[in-house]
């Protein structure tokens, strides 16, 4: 363990890796600040830039963009109540209220501190748990992998959008797109229509640049420009009282976030909502939530950061991404010719431990960037979107071109850009499509292997205890949103009834 950490830090602390880690977290923060742009867009658009770097350096930078944009996204959520991605939606509830009361500085500071503490806790857990988990996963055969992929898809279908049927539909579309090209099992070419381009399949990095960057820009054009910042920074420094109040929520949020983040497909959104919901129940100031309670910023921010790190457990040890952004990162691994999975820790120790060590370094950089500089980043919100989006389009198109040095990539980006616009407009969730697309080939391979093991009988999945258990969790996930909502509501009811009149606030009119 210690050897591995030493190896990791000696890799991550090389001048080149440090530099790219810094560039990654800085660019990530900037992308997070830009309204409507989230970590998935950032990683997809900038992936082509890293192709000429060493794999470990490229991944360090891409991962930096991923968690850097978690910090940046908070700034937009707090200041203009426009979260860059779903995982910071819940931060707007109290963060935006704090900003309107002139406490934006305190909200941003506690978010940065909470995120940092959560990052360190979750990274320690990640470092401690990932290797034994990879060891354990070595025993997974195709049936178990099949079950885990179904679990990932079920979870993302349940939680990625507001309609499970549409989530399922999009996951299926992703799986169907993944079948284009030569079938790895039999060599049959499918849905190629005689085109040599389609023979190698529809390239998914280009699909993601299209969906998340071009589609997003088109959608923003249709939505119109947002109002500028209303919030002021009356006091930049956070008070001792604020820090004292936030300690518990940050710790609880960190562990909760890690727990949810480990589930393939669950990701940070769910974690942030659960942390907020639970904090509201256990906090003495539960009734102030929604009016600008600092606990309501600290807990979900800690949770979404912890979950973002925990996402790497299934991504690195199973090769099954925990969310849309880790799906793009998985794509980056594959472009570098590295297959994440149980063997990764043995085969690529320098890469894995260098990457994990860079997370510690990146989060330290982010803390020092964000505590004093949050108001500076906030100025980016004043740049008119009209200047911004041509640059995003340019980078997307040239980046796409540079992946294969061909115009085919550019056309794929444009086609999926228009598809992405309609998906956003009609509220069709993108994350299930992305996961379906990435998992498609792995899914089919596991299916073919499972049928070979069972001599054509796929039902052997149900005779393997581990696979059966995972499948049971997958089925539970489909009902999970309803169950969770009910649990959160039920616990709310008795508490608000026996509320102590001594500390009840006038606004605390909770619905029973």
């Amino acid at each position: 363990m210690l050897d591995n950490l030493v190896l990791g830090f000696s890799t991550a602390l090389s001048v080149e890796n440090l530099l790219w880690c810094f560039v990654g977290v800085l660019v990530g923060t900037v992308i997070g600040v830009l309204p409507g742009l989230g970590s998935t867009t950032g990683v997809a658009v900038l992936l082509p830039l890293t192709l000429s770097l060493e794999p470990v350096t490229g991944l360090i930078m891409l991962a930096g963009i991923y968690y850097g944009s978690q910090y940046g996204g908070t700034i937009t959520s707090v200041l203009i109540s426009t979260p860059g991605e779903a995982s910071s939606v819940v931060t707007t509830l109290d963060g935006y209220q704090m900003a309107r009361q002139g406490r934006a500085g305190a909200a941003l500071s506690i978010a940065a501190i909470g995120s940092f503490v959560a990052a360190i806790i979750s990274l320690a857990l990640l470092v401690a748990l990932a290797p034994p988990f990879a060891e354990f996963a070595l025993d997974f055969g195709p049936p178990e992998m099949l079950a885990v992929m179904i679990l990932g898809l079920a979870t993302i279908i349940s939680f990625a959008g507001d309609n499970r049927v549409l989530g399922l539909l999009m996951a299926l579309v992703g799986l169907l797109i993944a079948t284009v090209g030569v079938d790895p099992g039999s060599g049959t070419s499918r849905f190629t229509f005689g085109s040599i381009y389609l023979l190698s399949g529809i390239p998914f990095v280009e699909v993601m640049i299209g969906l998340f960057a071009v589609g997003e820009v088109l959608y923003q054009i249709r939505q119109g420009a947002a109002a500028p910042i209303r919030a002021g920074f009356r006091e930049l420094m956070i008070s001792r009282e604020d820090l004292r109040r936030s300690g518990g929520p940050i710790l609880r949020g960190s562990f909760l976030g890690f727990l949810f983040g480990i589930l393939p497909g669950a990701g940070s959104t769910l974690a942030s909502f659960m942390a907020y919901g639970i904090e509201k129940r256990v906090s003495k100031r539960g009734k102030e939530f929604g009016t600008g309670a600092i606990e309501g910023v600290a807990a979900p921010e800690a949770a979404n950061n912890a979950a973002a790190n925990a996402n790497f457990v299934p991504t690195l040890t199973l090769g099954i991404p925990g969310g849309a952004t880790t799906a793009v990162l998985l794509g980056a691994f594959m472009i570098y010719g590295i297959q994440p999975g149980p063997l990764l820790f043995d085969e690529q120790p320098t890469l894995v431990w260098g990457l994990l060590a860079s997370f510690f370094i990146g989060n330290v950089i982010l803390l020092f960037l964000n505590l004093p500089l949050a108001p500076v980043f906030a100025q980016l919100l004043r740049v008119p979107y009209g200047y911004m989006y041509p640059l995003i389009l340019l980078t997307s198109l040239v980046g796409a071109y540079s992946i294969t040095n061909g115009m085919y990539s550019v056309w794929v980006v444009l086609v999926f850009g228009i598809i992405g616009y309609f998906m956003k407009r009609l509220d069709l969730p993108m994350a299930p499509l992305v996961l379906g697309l990435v998992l498609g080939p792995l899914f089919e391979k596991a299916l073919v292997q499972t049928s070979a093991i069972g001599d054509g009988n796929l039902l052997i999945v149900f005779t393997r205890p581990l696979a059966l258990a995972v499948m049971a969790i997958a089925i539970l996930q489909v009902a999970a949103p309803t169950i969770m909502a009910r649990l959160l509501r039920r616990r709310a009811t008795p508490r608000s009834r026996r509320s102590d009149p001594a500390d009840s606030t006038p606004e605390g009119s909770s619905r029973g």
Partner: protein
Amino acid sequence: MTTPPTRRGIAVEQAVVHGLLAALGLGAFVMALDYGLFLEESRVGPGLVPAVVGGLIALIAGWELVTTLRGHRTPHDRGLAEVVAATAVDAPSGGASSERATPGGVPAGGSGSMSPDGGPVQMPGPGPGPGPGPDDVDIFGRTPEERSRQLWTVSAALVVAALLVPLLGLLGSLLVLSVFISAVVEKRGWLPSLVVSFLAVAAVYGVFVGFLGVPLPTGLIGIGG
């Protein structure tokens, strides 16, 4: 839930998209049957996954199409929204909880250019959040129709720019694209548009050609590369 008049545009788009998806799923299903569902000893063949997936897409999208045509709007309160609603359930009203309760928000109505009815757009009250709603005038005073026109202009410009690459080269056509978007679509002055676009293209050139050494297509005129 019935469809209010302002939502007609989006309902049409929804019907078209689900119709296309249903056709796609059906087409994939039929083609996949030819690939062979099972190999010898009933092992999974190359057609099984596309057939099952295509069939399911056809069924689900077909069902969504039928319900949309019958005037029902797809509910958006199942999934994460349930957890969101439970989380925000007793937050005081008028707070931020009512502003953006669902991630991304449900894009309500709006008469997109695909809307067949050219009737007047109903302007609802102030938008739910600080950003303009899809039906509001934004801070530059653009109406939804103008924004919709801008959207289709930019989309068309992207396709035209890609078609111009063999002639102007990649950077050349992107320069034209950027100037066009800034000056014509965003209605900034020609000089600032030219300056900003030139700087943007120079930055892209510096990173991709200078730093990464990507050989970009130069076109007939031979710009960049």
